[in-house]
């Protein structure tokens, strides 16, 4: 048995990239390992593109795009892919909105039909918009049931002063109560144009067949104009910011956030290696890699806090984004440990890395972990298609293929440098969730 080199991973070569005359970018990759095909349609619009007063509109629009089109009634929409045993879904985040179907290859034309309808023919019936308002508020309230998520929302809003990354993707509840059908439809028509979209098809298909079908389904959609992205720049942070939530609860949570580089920034790969050394490598697949625990038992923050009994859980998150977002470090205090002592120990561990950097062995381990995780997170047509579309949307063509080499090239000096510069106290936002005894 000769171990397969990572460069031979199914995600690496042979992506057909084509732009239709109307500007729609199309990426096709044949993968014949299973009788499945995955279609993802990506739009370059997310909560970072929302004006004040309309926070959450991108996500609400995503919900409306499952509520029927001119040629597919709402009732039909959910049966089309299921007939082929397929699954469908969608998500919205700060830079992107995306829709997916994974099903048998015989469903491909129907999947492309759905996506073409979604791009042009959404109904936005007023009563459906109203009904969805309370569904989304329920989604928001469900999230707020989780103290860690509540803290995350508050820390993010505190870490940003001006940049629209500051508000949660789901929106502020008052905006969700105030906006209406015309706001939703206007946002939809502005952003759902071929020039703002990337269509990705990966699976047990013939690329030439796929491109012909894509042309038939999408070729006649008018080009439209891709909106220019105008986001307020974030002013430099000049001192530590803090937020304290005191509410009913049982468990104390601590969260740090620092300003992170964009995916295309020079610091991104060194930061990815730094995060892997601090909290264990997750990978870079937002769809599948941030569930479950990473390999982290030898990671710096884990050994400093979990192995010393101060935290029951640590996790770090560096997610690739179009513009500088946040690197966050989340800690759950072990029962009986105060947030003050947990924070002191966590800061000491971070300051140690800032002062002395990491050992060569730590950097090598972090890189090896990332190399493995990059393989694990492209183990299916659904995951490969996600990664191609995600990076085309947030970082441009060819970026995805460069990640493995980019990680490999990182040096211990670069890691020490980003730790020193980016994890400084005056660049930090610190959040506490301090539980109050129920009924107190």
């Amino acid at each position, binding site marked *: *048995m000769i*171990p*397969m*080199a*990572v460069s031979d991973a*199914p995600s690496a070569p042979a992506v057909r990239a084509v732009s239709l005359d109307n500007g729609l970018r199309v990426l096709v990759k044949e993968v*014949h*390992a*299973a*009788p*499945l095909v995955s279609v993802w349609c990506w739009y370059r619009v997310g909560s970072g593109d929302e004006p004040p007063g309309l926070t959450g509109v991108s996500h609400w629009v995503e919900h409306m795009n499952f509520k029927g089109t001119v040629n597919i009634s*709402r009732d039909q929409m*959910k*049966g089309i892919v*299921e*007939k*082929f*045993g397929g*699954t469908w879904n969608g998500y919205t985040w700060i830079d992107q909105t995306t829709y997916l179907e*994974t*099903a048998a290859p015989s469903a491909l034309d129907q999947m492309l039909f759905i996506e073409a309808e979604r791009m042009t023919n959404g109904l936005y019936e007023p009563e459906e918009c*109203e*009904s969805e308002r*309370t*569904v989304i508020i*329920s*989604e928001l*309230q*469900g999230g*707020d*049931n*989780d*103290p860690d998520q509540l803290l995350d929302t508050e820390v993010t809003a505190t870490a940003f002063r001006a940049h629209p990354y500051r508000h949660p993707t789901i929106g502020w509840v008052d905006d969700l109560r105030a906006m209406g059908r015309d706001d939703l439809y206007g946002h939809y028509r502005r952003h759902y144009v071929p020039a703002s979209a990337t269509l990705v098809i990966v699976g*047990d298909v013939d690329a030439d067949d796929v491109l012909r079908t894509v042309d038939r389904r999408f070729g006649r959609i008018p080009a439209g104009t891709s909106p220019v992205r105008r986001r307020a720049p974030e002013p430099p942070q000049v001192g530590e910011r803090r937020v304290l939530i005191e509410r*009913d*609860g*049982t*468990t104390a949570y601590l969260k740090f956030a620092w300003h992170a580089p964009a995916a295309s920034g020079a610091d991104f790969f060194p930061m990815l290696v730094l995060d892997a050394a601090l909290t*264990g490598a997750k990978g870079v697949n937002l769809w599948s890699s941030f569930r479950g*625990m*990473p*390999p*982290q*038992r*030898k990671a710096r923050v884990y050994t400093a806090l*979990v192995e010393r009994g101060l935290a*029951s859980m640590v996790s770090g998150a560096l997610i690739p984004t179009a513009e500088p977002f946040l690197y966050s470090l989340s800690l*759950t205090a*072990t*029962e009986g440990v105060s947030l003050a002592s947990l924070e002191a120990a966590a800061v000491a561990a971070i300051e140690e890395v800032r002062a002395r950097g990491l050992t060569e062995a730590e950097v090598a*381990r972090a890189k090896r*972990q990332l*190399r*493995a*995780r990059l393989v*694990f997170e*492209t*183990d299916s*047509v659904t995951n490969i298609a996600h990664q191609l579309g995600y990076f085309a949307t947030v970082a441009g063509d060819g970026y995805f293929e460069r990640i493995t080499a980019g990680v490999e090239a990182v040096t211990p000096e670069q890691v020490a440098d980003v730790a020193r510069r980016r994890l400084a106290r005056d660049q930090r936002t610190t959040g506490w969730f301090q539980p109050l005894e*129920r009924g107190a």
Partner: protein
Amino acid sequence: MRDTAVAGLAPVRDVLSNGARVIVQETSFSPSVTISASFRAGGLYEPAGLPGLAWFLGRVIDRGTADRSAGQIAETLDESGVALKVSVNRHTLALSCTCLSEDFETILAVMADVARRPAFPEAEIEKRRAEIITSIRQDDDNPAVCAHEALQRLLYGGEHPYGRPGKGTIAGAEAVTRDALRAFHAGRFAPAALSLAIVGDVPPARALACAGDVLGDWDAPAPPERAVPPVPHPSARQCVVVPMREKPQSDIAYGFVTIARLDPSYYACWMLNNILGQFGIGGRLAENIRERQGMAYYAFSAFDPSVGPGPLVVRAGVDPRNVDRAVAAIDYEVAVLADGGPTDQEVEETRQFLVGSIPRLLETNQSIAAFLQTSEFFGLGPDYDRRLPGLIEAVTREDIEAAGRAILEPSRAAVAVAGPVPAEP
């Protein structure tokens, strides 16, 4: 490999001379291997007075062996990018992970050592004990977990292995000793209780040889089987409220005790559940509660038959003011499906969906390993993925209607609500 995928799985199954079962499926879609070692050592087998012992053992089993310190195990796993996961349910305790093909031998050797010779160092027990207690406290603040656990207690009783929470209680976690862990391990971990699935970019001959190397000399008597205690069948509706003052949303868990996995009506019940609370965005339940009434982001049902009769659980998260309306909507959909059965169109759509989704169930090495472990656990045979379409096709509308009449009865439902609602549901 394309032909293999279309034709279905072709696992190689071997039983070592000591009774350990090894199932290997080679795949080529990723240069990685998923390993899953499942033991019949779940919560069912816990001794009286130590609820959560199996869970506790799962947290500490990989923290040091006779030959390897906790630090050495951590080093090997971390160097390979491997996160070893231990899952504990009512019947099994499973160690699982995914590794690069080139690390397969090293990782399998560590997993075998962890399963066979855990040392349970006292210092590790104390660290993990504090984590478990923290985790139970977190669950106490989670309305979804509270509602689900309250429902399990209503359906099965708090002492039944299907009724008590898998993590046990804080008192239980405080009572666990090193001797109790060692005794539980000695009593339940043996080659005859092991099913090892290896799925990925590794030839079966190499996988089997490696499994033989690390497990072949393991000699331990087969653990005794333990029957699932009898399950009560309530004759009246039961309701409970778990008050959680400041939570913005209430969680509802509503359910029935159903059938065992090997019951002949399994496929009819599976399709029934798909129609009630799975198809599309969540079957009839989501159509009513989410799509028509806009009350909830999630409304669905889950069907979980096991060795003994498992539950069918309806779940929804709603504004606290809408709890009564949501429970009424669940009652309505449950009663209508029980009375009238499914429509012909629903039966046909569900059949197409379930048959068509089999390749998607087998999309990744992890999902194939899970499928093979379930097949092995229930004795469904190595060709189960190929027999499954026929088993689904054979179910008639009348079968599903009969299953609905047998299971779905609002006057015998158990209803648990966790959230800031003082009123009875």
